[in-house]
């Protein structure tokens, strides 16, 4: 059934051009959104900017519940709703825009492998840090996650989410890891990305691809979000080509296209947290 539904969606997607009022939904930027969701949302925004597709960001407290797969961000285009970077890339491809067409087969395989590496290590490490590290959970995650809701709903929702994430960590074998081991994994992942990037402007030389968008989303969020300690962002700052990469993409795609002053103000407020 789902194969048929997917193909149907693809067919519909191909029929219409990209509308002007496409919207991307995420949680409330200043009070509610967490590190991992912010990273995913920024990755999608970067990807759409790279494809030159206009999108406006709408912040809603219940974005997670509106999403068809339960994960943010999701985009609302025409009369279709698509969530998460993978399906969004396919959806945009069905509409005729693609960043990875110029790659040959081996490079496409590499791109997919590196995207899995980022999802497997960076995203899981972010989830671990914000839901399984007790200090961070008490001071940052619980207050932020339930902030739009009154007591006791805010505590119940955040405990429920924490239980779900901990179950998943246990199933994939990360429950037994300590914070140091997780940070070491992040370091290994950043080292691999840094070695792959080398001195090139983008991962596949001249043109950005969805891999660049994904890496930018995660690294920029790690660099600019203030947590209890700076250990996570220090791991990324160790690799100067990665920080230069983030700065380059930010300058090229977010300062040129962003005429909205409030968006720029938000970004500069975030950057002032960067010590």
């Amino acid at each position, binding site marked *: 059934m789902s194969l*048929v539904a997917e193909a149907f969606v693809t067919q519909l997607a191909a029929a219409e051009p990209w509308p002007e009022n496409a919207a991307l939904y995420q949680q409330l930027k200043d009070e509610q959104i967490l590190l991992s969701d912010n990273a995913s949302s920024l990755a999608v925004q970067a990807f759409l900017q790279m494809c030159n597709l206009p999108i406006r960001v709408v912040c809603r407290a219940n974005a997670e519940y509106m999403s068809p797969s339960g994960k943010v961000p999701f985009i609302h285009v025409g009369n279709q709703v698509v969530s998460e970077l993978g399906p969004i890339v396919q959806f945009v491809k069905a509409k005729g825009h693609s960043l990875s067409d110029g790659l040959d087969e081996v490079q496409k395989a590499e791109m997919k*492998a590196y995207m899995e590496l980022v999802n497997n290590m960076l995203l899981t490490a972010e989830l671990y840090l914000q839901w399984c590290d007790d200090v961070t959970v008490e001071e940052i995650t619980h207050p932020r996650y339930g902030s739009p809701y009154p007591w006791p709903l805010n505590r119940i929702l955040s405990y429920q989410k924490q239980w779900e994430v901990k179950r998943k960590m246990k199933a994939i*074998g990360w429950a037994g890891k300590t914070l140091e081991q997780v940070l070491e994994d992040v370091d290994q992942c950043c080292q691999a990305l840094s070695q792959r990037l080398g001195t090139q402007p983008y991962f596949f030389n001249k043109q950005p691809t969805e891999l660049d968008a994904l890496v930018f989303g995660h690294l920029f969020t790690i660099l600019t979000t203030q947590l209890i300690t700076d250990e996570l962002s220090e791991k990324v700052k160790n690799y100067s080509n990665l920080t230069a990469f983030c700065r380059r993409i930010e300058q090229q795609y977010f300062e040129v296209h962003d005429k909205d002053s409030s968006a720029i103000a938000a970004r500069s407020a975030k950057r002032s947290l960067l010590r």
Partner: protein
Amino acid sequence: MAAPMELRCWEGDWGLPSVHPESLTVMAYAKFSGAPLTVNTISRSWKAPKGDIPVLISEDKVISQPAKILNFLRKQKYNADYELSAKQGADTLAYIALLEEKLLPALLHTFWIEAENYCSVTKPWFASRIAFPLSLYLPGKMSREALNRILLTKGGPPLYSLTEVEAQIYRDAKECLNLLSKRLGTSQFFFGDTPTTLDAFVFGFLAPVYKVCFPRVQLQEHLKQLPNLCRFCDDILTCYFRLSVSGHSPAGQDTADANLQKLTQLVDKESNLIEKVTFASVSNYSAFCGYLFTDILAWQLQLYNGLCFFSTELHCVERQEEYYITWKE
């Protein structure tokens, strides 16, 4: 460096040194790097397998996961990645992540969750290697853990039933096999002429799929159509494990390329199923939906019949039966 190292892992069968993917990875790496390991397989003794298998015991250190065991071996100067460049080292990590995300769920499903496979092959095999009271409990526990892992990592909305999750994970696994085949191409190992960590991981994951004889084998059939991967597994078994492989003559390179192209198209077509069926005649959305949901089985059977022309050994025939059975239910 001369400290004796003992590896405890599951036994082998069907021409393999071990049927457990992680144990096989560690054993392959040890052979590649020349590390002297004494392999002790778990037999029917009271030394129950506590914790994760494989386990490396060296002096007083006990190390359990494959990644950690490989790190330990590298620290002991048994390094198979010595000649790799920095970029190749990064590629290794990326491809290992790809294997764990895309191929491992389907592997776990084939071994532990597919009912016929589990009841007729996996459970009796593992139960016969574990001491008596535990043999009644441990295989069931391993099966439940595998199901848990698949549902938690792959099973969220919009996939609501186990069959949908299964369809998705097998699609991902076949795509992963195609990608690996493209990456391997015609070379003997993934990074030139000497095997490395990536070869150990790929061998560890592929060899059980390739060799173990199961009743329901859609992944194995897909793998057998990628002759360079089959040749890769056979080469490692003959050269590094000195095990004879049954006569399997891989097709020539042209047929290999043609097969790979067909398989890639097939996997893509499975994702864009209805492209073959014309939409043009139906313009009204609601009428279309009505048609879609009432006649869906006829479409799918027709489509799979069409797709069957592309390959003789196709799992779609099996799928046809599956859909027919669901309809009957």
